[in-house]
């Protein structure tokens, strides 16, 4: 048998036999995300004023905003979670979640061929009276 003193990994290997595994049994044991970890962009339709700044500043062009249609969408598969949109949003409509990013699969592609990560919102037009006071 080889001399264990000339094989410096042997003590470690022997300890490994007795110690717990360094890995987790992933699907059953999920490590909680750290506070401040970047997850997905969450959108609050109520406060958004459709200024389009987020769409203009998004490096990945994941956000589409149509001011006239009061439409806001994000493609979570294109989003790189850099957080620029959260920083520039004056109305604080955008937040970064701390959870893991959702895994979008091909199976989620809708019958109309829509990308699985696309999330859309359309704000109903306000009643005419509100437009008058705002204008």
């Amino acid at each position: 048998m080889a001399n264990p003193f000339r094989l410096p990994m042997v003590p470690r290997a022997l300890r490994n036999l007795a110690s717990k595994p360094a890995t987790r049994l992933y699907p059953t044991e999920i490590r909680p995300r750290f506070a401040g970890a970047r997850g997905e962009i969450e959108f609050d339709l109520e406060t958004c004023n459709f200024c389009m700044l987020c769409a203009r500043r998004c490096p990945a062009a994941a956000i589409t905003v149509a001011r006239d249609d009061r439409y806001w969408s994000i493609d979570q598969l294109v989003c790189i979670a850099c957080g620029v949109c959260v920083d520039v949003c004056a109305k604080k409509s955008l937040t970064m979640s701390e959870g893991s990013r959702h895994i979008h699969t091909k199976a989620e592609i809708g019958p109309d061929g829509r990308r699985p990560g696309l999330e859309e919102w359309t704000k109903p037009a306000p009643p005419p009276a509100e437009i008058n006071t705002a204008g």
Partner: protein
Amino acid sequence: MKRTTIPFGPQHPVLPEPIVLDLILEDEKVIDAIPTIGYIHRGLEMMVERVEYTEMGFVVERICGICSFMHGMGYCVSLESIMNVEVPERARWLRLIWAEISRVQSHLLWLGLGADAFGFENLFMHCWRMREEILDIFEQTTGGRIIHSVNRIGGVKRDISDTELAAILARLQQLGAEFKETARVFGTDPSIRHRLSGVGVLSMEDARAVDAVGPMARASGIAMDTRLSGTFMYDHIDFQPIVETAGDCLARVLVRLREVDQSIDIIRQAIDRMPKGEGMPLENKPRGNPTGEVFTRLEQPRGEVLYYVKANGTKNLERFRARTPTFANIPAMIKLVKGSDLADVPQIILTIDPCISCTER
């Protein structure tokens, strides 16, 4: 003697990324090697023409998944010097800390890959287990494990609180103590010595002649380290570049082993000397568009990286160029491969720590 040409790569067990070397052999000896790169060229430098300079930082960060922090930092530092933006002191210290943490991460990753290449699976697993803890520190402080997105032109986006910094340092020092055992295996195990010692020797003269950078040059006895220039707060840190003189594959492993300890010590000094307190300024936002050109040098885990930025007063830069350390080390690698045995080629290629994504961008 009849010559044989063996294509090495793009798919090969030791290569984490695709590169091709056409090895021309006489019997078992390599007499020539012709590299072909371009398998993962993504045209990232060209993207400056259609991506605004404020957004380009996120693209530059994605050049490479291992030194992503330093790529982002190099780009932001380049634009800060063009636009004369004064970066707050705490932000500069934080950048140094993250940069050194990413050096530890990169070296642990490479040591694992190296161990895997010479067939030491157990050692590979241990290196990567330790690297995992460094990635946890990154996730905790920047919000991302690989792509950090904390560098902004003019500073950094996130602060690390003083208590958190102390906790990180304690964790790193504990990791460093644990790493000593692993480092001892690399340094003393007879099978590793037998495999690496005397293989792929790059003399100091040759290293100078082919302009080797980073650990490659330091393993050949050249005390070259861009951090010595004292930029990015390194002038406040006491350290000496780690130099080995043998110039073989083992020396390159030893340089990286000792650099892990050195980086942890640099982080300790940085945490000692940085200004303390909550709510300190972290970012001075630049105004207007940049005009001018600049070269920036940084010491990445693999060696010196050089950024060239030329701006013409519009939202898009005119030219962005990154000369990455692996690109600079390819001539050295070719020099070493010539004249070596075919069986030693994988070790030689791996010990330059090739990052093909960086090289081809």
